[in-house]
């Protein structure tokens, strides 16, 4: 067929190109945008200090924060503090998660457990763990146990909620299918409920990991010698604002790292979505 637009038969004067009007509204990846925004923000921040708009006491410039950070790396205190906090986060989070998984699973499959558990969780979840610290000290002492407990308790309740709602969200038709093929209870749990609940459970991990990070500061209020939370608290008490911000930076870097690891895990485990 001849090209209809470029044939002399059509009246070129009345010919109008159809205007494209379909763009936008679909997310695209802009890998450099975030970095550029970050860099711009830091430059602006440094600039305000250099020009003298912000006093270095109230807003230490990034260069001062960087120096403080470099100091922490050089004298080994960064690693010392990080190690102590990572251990607390690791153990506390694992304990809370293990407990939360067990209880959440029970509440997910047994309606009696659900009836007992839901009001209890609603009652205990909103209690600020910081308010309980004196009690934790009496129960668990001021050693590592009370720090694990602080983080563990904080992680436990959201995990319970995430797990039982995740189990609720597993399509019932899959369970009926399994029953219709005579799969025993345990096999249904292992092969259907748990993998089906995995996306919700992993989403819960994302939340509880942040909670653990927040609570490590509270936990390290309890007589911690080392720990990134203790470090930040001390810098605050001593009004060393550059050190304080350096500690905060380390914490957000930790948060980013944990988030990235979880994303990796999700991509690995949830390819089927």
């Amino acid at each position, binding site marked *: 067929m001849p090209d209809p637009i470029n044939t002399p038969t059509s009246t070129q004067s009345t010919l109008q190109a159809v205007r494209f009007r379909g763009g936008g509204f679909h997310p695209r990846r802009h890998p450099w945008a975030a970095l550029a925004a970050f860099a711009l923000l830091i430059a602006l921040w440094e600039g305000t200090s250099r020009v003298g708009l912000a006093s270095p006491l109230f807003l230490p410039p990034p260069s001062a924060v960087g120096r403080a950070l470099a100091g922490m790396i050089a004298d080994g205190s960064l690693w010392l503090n990080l190690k102590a906090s990572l251990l607390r986060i690791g153990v506390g989070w694992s304990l809370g998660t293990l407990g939360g998984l067990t209880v959440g699973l029970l509440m997910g499959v047994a309606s009696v457990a659900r009836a007992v558990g839901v009001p209890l969780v609603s009652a205990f979840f909103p209690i600020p763990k910081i308010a309980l610290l*004196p009690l934790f000290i009496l129960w668990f002492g001021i050693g590592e146990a009370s720090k694990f407990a602080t983080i563990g308790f904080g992680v436990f309740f959201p995990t319970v909620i995430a797990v039982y709602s995740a189990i609720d969200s597993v399509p019932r038709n899959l369970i009926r299918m399994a029953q219709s093929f005579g799969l025993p209870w345990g096999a249904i749990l292992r092969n259907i409920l748990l993998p089906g609940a995995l996306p919700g459970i992993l989403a819960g991990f994302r939340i509880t990991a942040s909670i653990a990070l927040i609570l490590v500061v509270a936990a390290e209020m309890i007589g911690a010698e080392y720990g990134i939370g203790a470090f930040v608290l001390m810098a605050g008490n*001593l009004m060393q604002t550059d050190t304080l911000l350096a500690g905060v930076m380390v914490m957000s870097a930790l948060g980013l790292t944990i988030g990235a690891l979880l994303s990796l895990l999700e991509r690995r485990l949830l390819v089927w979505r």
Partner: protein
Amino acid sequence: MSIARWTRRTLLQRTAFAGVALAAALAVGPQPVAAQTLDKASVGVLALSSSGPIFIAKAKGYFEREGLDVTLSTFTSAQQVPVAVASGDVDFGVTGLTAGFYNLAAKGAITMIAAQSRDEPGFPLSAYVATNAAHAAGLAKPSDLKGKRIAITTVGSTFHYMIGILGQKYGFTVKDVTMVPLQDVPKMVAAFKGGQVDAILAPSTVARQLVADGAGQILGWAGDETPWQLGALFTGPKTIQTRRPVVEKFVRAYKTALAEYHAAFNVKDASGALVKGPGYDALLTIIADATKQKPEIVAAGLPYVDPNARLLIDDVVNQVRFWQSEGQVDKALDPKSILDLSFIGQ
């Protein structure tokens, strides 16, 4: 920064309102003659009896008499007061001296101009309290604290320093004890009652409560063992430069109240026992109202103040040296550079 400052100001104005209301409630002295001729000034305080002289100066109209309209801003932690002065949110501040305070001063943000309270023999403010178990095991006097686990609030706090000077007196350093920072007194008490530490340093009311509960034994008082400068009146260097007359008036009114406070609460008879001085009850009421405490409680923990607002300069120097040796305050800080005692003529 200006935006952050602006919002904080509005916040602070709320606190200031509370201060004004408080002042109105306390107004027993002469009324200001002509409000429009008064210079405005503000002072950051904690609702503790150590701020007593400020409450008295306000309630009895000594500031107005000097031609000042002073607003009280009440803060909840010692940390906030020097920060508020450094940021210019308030003109003056009175609180205890901590490593954080000296770090702000080292950055040129605040200058000490007069004394607040001090630890002094015969004035029980802070006690060394031993658990029953530690006591039974031989922890009987303050010098025994060497090698023990002691709960404090935070690193860089007044409690931290008190252990430091106790060590200076008995020949040990803070490295010889295990300090357990627990952020606040309730957690210290919990660790103490749970037997997690051998001793704590506690304010007098807490210490007496622990003894009353049968939880421990008081070994002694910091005032008896190691007298030291607990707190100071301070302002920003810029205020001194640009509003010197206001500072002079403020200090004069403060000193008047200080002398009155001293005469009422700090005078001893020949036997060394405290006697009630002139105006004792009225002043006690003022402080009790301002701190929202029962008068008996306030009376049991009234600190010593120097009637002329003189600072224990040697102790301030010692404090700075101590924090510097602990690595918590910049080594370059010269303690004299953060003092301006010209207003009290010291």
